């Protein structure tokens, strides 16, 4: 058990360290978030009402798009640098690698989402501070849903032809329920209603997250061997 946790931690620590040193993913993602802001504004036009009505959707669209870029790169470093066999030959339960990668992705996604939230609040003049608590709950559950499947599919497509196309094509349909749930819950929260009103959606998200996580843990070693 301790060895498992330790292996998970090593993968997490290595990825975060690489990220902190090179800063290539995080910087690009943050810049991408800024660009999205402008893109959404230009696409929807100057009508403030329309933008505000679409805000929950735009927020999660931003998270998903950033997630596609960030998660898709989860295993690129290992693949490009011939470290894949190193992963395969790790002793013990391979699912620790999945967990470590998932944790690293959650940290990066979390950072990007906080920045996107802040930018949204600033540029679109939305009061997010008063609903920060409930919003954080939705964010955590939604990001888990995105990252659990995203990390698994990233490993899966790592060595496949046309992986940059295949990864979004595979991930997005699976993310539909997560997207529906998070946007609906966010809408409820931004309307000022209490978190309890979104309880059904949150339960769906939690259930889905659990299912995805379990499948990821169980099937990751098969993905590695492929």
């Amino acid at each position, binding site marked *: 058990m301790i060895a498992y946790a330790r292996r998970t931690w090593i993968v997490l620590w290595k990825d975060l360290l690489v990220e902190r040193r090179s800063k290539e993913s995080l910087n690009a993602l943050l810049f991408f978030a800024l660009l999205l802001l402008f893109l959404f504004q230009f696409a929807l036009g100057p009508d403030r009402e329309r933008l505000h009505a679409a805000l929950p959707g735009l927020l999660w669209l931003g998270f998903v798009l950033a997630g596609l870029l960030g998660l898709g790169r989860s295993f690129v470093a290992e693949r490009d640098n011939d470290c894949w066999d190193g992963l395969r030959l790790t002793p013990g339960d391979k699912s620790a690698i999945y967990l470590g990668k998932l944790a690293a992705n959650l940290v990066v996604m979390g950072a990007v989402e906080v920045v996107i939230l802040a930018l949204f609040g600033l540029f679109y003049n939305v009061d997010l501070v008063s609903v920060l608590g409930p919003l954080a709950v939705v964010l955590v559950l939604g990001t888990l849903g995105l990252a659990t499947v995203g990390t698994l599919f990233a490993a899966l497509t790592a060595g496949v032809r046309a992986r940059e196309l295949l990864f979004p094509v595979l991930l*997005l349909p699976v993310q539909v329920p997560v997207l529906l749930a998070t946007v609906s819950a966010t809408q409820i929260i931004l309307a000022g209603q209490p978190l309890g009103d979104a309880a059904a959606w949150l339960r769906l998200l939690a259930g889905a997250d659990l299912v995805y996580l379990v499948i990821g843990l169980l099937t990751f070693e098969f993905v590695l061997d*492929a």
Partner: protein
Amino acid sequence: MSARATRILGGLALLALATGLAAGFGYAPREAIQGNVQRIMYIHVPAVLTAYLAFGLVLVGSIGALATGRMGWDRLAGAAAELGVLFTAVTIVSGSIWGKPTWGTWWTWDARLTSTAVLFLVYAGYLLLRAMVDEPERRARIAAVVGIVGAANIPIVHFSVKWWRALHQPSTILGPESSPIAGPIAAALFVNWVAFTLLFLYLLLRRVELARLEDAWVPETRR
């Protein structure tokens, strides 16, 4: 399954389809509210049921492939997925054609059509993935994982879409089958469903056989 048995199954399927056609147009009456447009349901409902059967088999094949490592399970999964996508497309197109005169629009984001469309996208992606991997063992493992995720997601999609629709539009009175379903209509639906299932099984057997022969054949050509 022997070639002869498969041919017999094909003949049975053809017979059943003909019977279904007769039942749908001869035996079943003109529906009271929707008129004869309702007869499209004798395609739409059996097709969606067959699609779910197909995707269930994809799950079985995927789990089998991972659990045993034997390629037969993967061949089942791949074949079932192809047929599942085919029948899902039939479901969507027939549903859309039915919707135009009934609801006035080619597409509507109602729960069933939306769920079916998402299903289509998931398994179309699955087929795309299979096409991108050439080595059979590798393809089997990778596809199996996606197959399991896709199948596990089906109930999640169903509920999320249902709740999403409940928020945005009250349920329409004009459902694809009005309730309660009249006797002859139910009978015609049943016959057509049996026919579609037989057709599905026949096509599945042929597809699996084709995959088996191709898998055995390809290594020979590399000499």
